[in-house]
């Protein structure tokens, strides 16, 4: 395949059957991936379009597509954003702790521990969210309502079960922590030793060294880590579906009440079992929306990483 693209490549005309089969197999595997992805987009579109144009009477929710999907998009974005706000500083802190504050040997073990978090299946996170986190958060929400109720986020009335969008966001934050930590850690470790030593030689404290040498070097890496984490948070399904107590169609800034907007992914998981007819198409169409959102986020992350590659002069 590659050789036919370049006519000057070689003069040899002999191609062995083994070579032809092997390169044919690997090329078709690569092309198959293109087809699969095109398939994902195509099938979602085919099955989704009837949902977008479905008349409100044919759909269980009794709404046309946009009013139906808007609160879900809102819920998805708000949950993922809060998760990111919680998780990014912790991820940076943990990565810095592992890469520069703990002894090297220990750092590797601690890295494994963080990676263990990535190994926990999402349904287990969901169970943990319901069984442990939500009940423990409920009194905190009550306290927030009583003392900080004037802020719209904490307006209340506080949920007695604790199954709020805030709890869901915390679970999401824990779930995206490992991937972001892993990326940040890699980048922190790649910081040129010379920069660090230059900073230390100027009499900088460890923190000043981090600010002068590590962060400028790692900035775009941190951003792309955050974007990848955001992508994960947007698409996470089960943990949110299990933790969140949902009231359909809610759009509210209130983070601690028992009426919460659902997320696209969680809504599909919750409604798909009983859905039929056009309702299925509506759900698939909402999946398409989610696909587009995550695609854009990942695309942005990729673009940032690629730009960084060009400027870093590495490789």
């Amino acid at each position, binding site marked *: 395949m590659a050789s036919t693209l370049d006519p000057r490549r070689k003069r040899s005309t002999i191609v062995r059957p083994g070579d032809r089969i092997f390169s044919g197999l690997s090329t078709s595997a690569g092309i198959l991936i293109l087809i699969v992805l095109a398939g994902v987009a195509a099938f979602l579109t085919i099955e989704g379009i009837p949902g977008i144009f479905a008349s409100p009477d044919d759909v269980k929710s009794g709404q046309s597509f946009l009013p139906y999907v808007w609160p879900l998009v809102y819920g998805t974005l708000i949950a993922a954003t809060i998760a990111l706000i919680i998780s990014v500083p912790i991820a940076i802190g943990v990565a810095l702790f592992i890469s520069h504050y703990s002894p090297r040997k220990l750092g590797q073990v601690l890295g494994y521990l963080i990676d263990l978090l990535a190994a926990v299946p999402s349904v287990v996170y969901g169970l943990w969210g319901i069984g442990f986190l939500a009940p423990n958060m409920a009194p905190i929400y009550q306290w927030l309502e009583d003392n900080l109720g004037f802020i719209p986020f904490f307006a209340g009335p506080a949920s007695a079960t604790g199954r709020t969008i805030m709890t869901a966001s915390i679970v999401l934050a824990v779930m995206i922590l490992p991937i972001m930590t892993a990326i940040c850690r890699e980048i922190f470790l790649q910081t040129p030793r010379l920069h660090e030593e230059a900073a230390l030689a100027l009499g900088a404290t460890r923190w000043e060294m981090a600010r002068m040498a590590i962060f400028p070097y790692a900035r775009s890496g941190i951003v792309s880590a955050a974007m990848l984490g955001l992508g994960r948070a947007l*698409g996470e399904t089960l943990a949110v579906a299990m933790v969140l107590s949902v009231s359909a169609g809610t759009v509210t800034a209130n983070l601690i009440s028992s009426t919460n907007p659902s997320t696209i992914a969680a809504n599909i998981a919750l409604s798909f079992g009983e859905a039929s007819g056009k309702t299925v198409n509506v759900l698939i169409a909402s999946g398409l929306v989610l696909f587009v959102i995550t695609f854009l986020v990942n695309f942005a992350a990729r673009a940032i990483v690629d730009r960084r590659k060009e400027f870093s002069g590495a490789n």
Partner: protein
Amino acid sequence: MTTLTNPPGPAKTPGPVDVHQELYGARLPSWGPRAVLGGAVVVAAALYVLAGVNVMLAALIVFAISLLLPVWSVVVEGRRKATDRLVTVLVTSSFVLAMFPLFSILYTVITKGTKVLGVDFFTFSMRNVVGEGGGIYHALAGTLLITGAATVISVPIGMFTAIYLVEYADGNRLSRWIRFLVDVMTGIPSIVAGLFAYALFVLFFGEGVRMGIGGSVALSVLMIPVVVRSTEEMLKLVPNELREASYALGVPKWRTVSKVVLPTALAGIVTGITLAIARVIGETAPLLIIAGATDSVNFNLFDGRMASLPVFAYTSVRNPGVPPEFSIDRAWGAALTLLLIVMLLNLIARLVSYYFSPKGER
């Protein structure tokens, strides 16, 4: 050289006091940080035991008292050192904070999950079970079958794609597209993969289709990019010198790739595949959509609903029945089983990469 063997007596002579002061400045005693932390833990523990404050609040108290260290430092050492100490406290606490959910999850799942674990739990399905009893046999079988089929689909496609990218593509346009799309695939939400499988199968089997193999297809969409990525990395690590050595012996390219490059990278590839399996085996959302849930054993991937561990755990919590506690206990048991499988796979991956990597390479 000889000076090193001299007794260190004269070296200990203290220099002039002002130089010492200049170099060292005012410092907190070296036991300072440990003392503050120890004090914080003691106070919090005391409050936990005596006053019965909850765990989270106790942790918060430890954190708050630790903040006294930079305050003390700003008085003794000045602002710069104090900032440094503050950041150290923050960075360390963020790590402790991150460990908190891990241990909390492990503790919760283990204590709640071990209650139901037993021989019956693994050998009975949920068929005709109301209330107590029953097991996860059907779900375990389903998980193994679906994930097994997903592995069978993903590994050849993923490996051959990686071989194409590293050995054949030479950075041409097609390979850049494939790399880009593999990246896009990495970001596909699992529920979207499930919808894809559903939308695909609906075309052939009509509305409301539920099949185990559909779950495998959905999991493959999630697994293929991971396999491609890890295999690609491993193939790139194989030194070019080995390929050249093989070519120079008159070995055709396909034999070079299959008999020299792949065996050299094998341990890494197996590790990557194991981790990929570990990643998809816990996926719930796509299976919920396309494989569905059932109480009975189903060994046929191509016929009807098929239970799986994560979906079982989910539905047991979602629709617990009356009384709910037995069903919820079973959910924790299933979650524990799943967690054990995933941890086991991770362990296997590490062991493979540790013991079977070619020696003398690094």
